[in-house]
């Protein structure tokens, strides 16, 4: 029973607005580790329970039949030892695939420090595997998760990566060879529990994509569930905006041809609160704009705020049969509210727009937002009547002529 859809299917959305597609459960909430950020750490006094593999299988099948879920996401606390835990996980997914004949999606966590043969076997039953990076840097890991080591985490990650590559060759040679982790691997890390900058985090993510060939990196805003003096107090709630900006940047890395270095730098290590990373990049690179919609290449189009992968593709297709206007762009799904500052159609801009940092920022951000968030992260300033002394410099003759004939 069961199949998988390439795009994935969301089956519900929980009250925090996140998609519920998998039955996401822990095999056990017992744990021998004492990670400071985790509710199930050894030193917490909470009720503990462990599933049997059969219970998990029965629950998955019954939920799946009713179309509640798309598959199983199996994680676990560490019971007795990493290898013992991994064996439990492996037994569960093996049972689910063989005895219960489940063909849906299975995502299993690989437990760092577990026997590599067990991880390999599990990989043949699962669609996707992931090893949690937990925290972006080794230093943070030492401080908050004293039982976990960076090296232990990266070893199974590398093992799964090489496993996938080898398996591709096997499958090419023998069509019916069993597939190893066909859905690729992912990882996740906690944002805001330690003091890393966005720049560091984004570099870590870029490295993971390039060196470990990960499918996805997940960022989760830190939620303080334990009282511990090592953990930061978050009076404003979890850093959700920061998480959101990181996901936006993550998409730019994977689908838009940006690199981490372009978006942030040592000197500007954090994202702008008011502008999304793409707008922010565009504002700092006004020399690349405006882009002519009817002529620009796809890389150029992808860099325009308000044009996504889909609309760029549609523009390329549609302009073969017609000269596109702003009205057409709206139909194609371009967000003109953002794009109009950066594009021309047949050489004309939509409105007489000034290509000027301050002007564009003021129009891109809404006033209320600016007041709510303060001027935090905003490097551009608001013009007032009282800084007219800034504008008393001599206007060159070229500028005067351009103003007179209405050129930009």
């Amino acid at each position: 029973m069961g199949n998988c859809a390439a795009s994935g299917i969301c089956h519900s959305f929980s009250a925090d607005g996140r998609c519920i597609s998998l039955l996401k459960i822990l095999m056990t909430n017992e744990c021998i580790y004492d990670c400071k950020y985790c509710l199930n750490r050894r030193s917490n006094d909470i009720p503990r329970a462990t599933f049997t593999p059969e219970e998990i299988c029965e629950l998955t099948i019954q939920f799946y039949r009713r179309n509640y879920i798309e598959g199983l996401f199996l994680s676990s606390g560490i019971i007795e030892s990493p290898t013992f835990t991994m064996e439990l996980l492996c037994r569960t997914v093996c049972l689910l695939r063989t005895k219960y004949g489940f063909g849906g999606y299975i995502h299993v966590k690989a437990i760092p420090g577990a026997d590599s043969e067990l991880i390999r076997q599990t990989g043949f039953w699962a669609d996707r595997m992931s090893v949690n990076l937990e925290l972006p840097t080794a230093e943070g890991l030492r401080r908050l998760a004293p039982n976990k080591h960076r090296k232990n985490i990266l070893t199974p990650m590398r093992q799964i990566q090489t496993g996938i590559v080898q398996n591709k060759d096997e499958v090419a040679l023998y069509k019916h060879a069993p597939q190893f982790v066909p859905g690729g691997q992912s990882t996740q890390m906690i944002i805001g529990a330690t003091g890393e900058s966005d720049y560091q985090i984004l570099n870590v993510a870029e490295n993971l994509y390039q060196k470990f060939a990960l499918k996805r990196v997940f960022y989760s805003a830190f939620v303080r569930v334990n009282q511990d003096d090592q953990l930061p107090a978050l009076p404003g709630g979890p850093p959700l905006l920061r998480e959101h900006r990181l996901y936006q940047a993550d998409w730019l890395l994977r689908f838009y041809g940006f690199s981490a270095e372009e978006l942030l730098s040592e000197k500007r290590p954090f994202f702008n609160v008011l502008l999304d990373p793409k707008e922010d990049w565009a504002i700092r690179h006004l020399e690349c704009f405006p882009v002519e919609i009817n002529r620009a290449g796809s890389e150029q189009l992808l860099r325009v705020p308000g044009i996504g992968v889909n609309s760029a593709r549609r523009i390329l297709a549609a302009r073969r049969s017609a000269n596109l206007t702003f009205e057409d762009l709206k139909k194609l799904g371009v967000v003109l509210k953002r794009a109009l500052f950066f594009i021309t159609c047949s050489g004309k801009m939509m409105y007489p727009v000034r290509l000027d940092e301050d002007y564009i920022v003021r129009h891109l951000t809404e006033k209320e937002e600016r007041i709510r968030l303060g001027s935090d992260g905003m490097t551009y300033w608001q013009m007032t009547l009282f800084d007219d002394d800034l504008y008393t410099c001599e206007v060159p003759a070229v500028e005067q002529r351009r103003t007179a004939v209405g050129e930009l």
Partner: protein
Amino acid sequence: MLVYRCEDSLEGIFTAVYRIYAERLPREQVRLALDDEVRLFETVQRCEPDAACSEKVMRTLIRRFGQKDYERVCFALAADDPDKAQAVYRTIALGLTLQYGNGHLFDALADPEVHKAFQLSRNVEREFCHLRGFLRFEELADDILYAQFCPKNHQLPLLLPHFADRFPEENFIIYDVKREIASVHPQGKEPFLLHGAEMGEERLHRSAREADYRALFQDFCRHIAIDERRNPKLQQNLLPLHLRRFMTEFSDSTHAADETQCH
């Protein structure tokens, strides 16, 4: 102007398209209509659906524009819109005349008719993607899975292959409350559609364990939400209220009879 009045079905509309080409009519001078409304200077001709003709159109579409674009056409034709036939016909005619290649049927988005067909197709596909996830089955006493829903467009023929592929070993029924059509999938046999079926709440006897699994899933959905991140508005954006009507996690645990008509 000649008007082809065709039946509101994939077969009916494809047959009309076939007739226009077979009779070598000037393509600008023909309009496809699903209703009986006649405009000035128009003559109406009825067009009965014919399986062989529609099959030929289907094969041509797949050969010229590929499987993906053919599916898009099917999505557009499942829409609940009186002008869909004309929009799709114009799109196909344009694609054939200008000899668009595989996967390029909807390229000329600047054309209003093509854009209309594209929009219809996209809307239906979006609803289809939602329903694939949001449809909920209940287990009845004789091991039959039963789901009811109330889609805006005619989704049953699209959903049936998806669920037949997913649950080949199950007996299941999906019931469209608005159109009163049921699709029945007997275990291991060909599924079929049943028009004019009536499903009264009083005829549904749920299995003994059904209530337990409902409660388990409701618990799961409650606990998976993180309180610190609560965001009902985001939830509502992604899962609008009208889609929640038949969903397990949004109904209370008693099986309240839902007799209100759906429009």
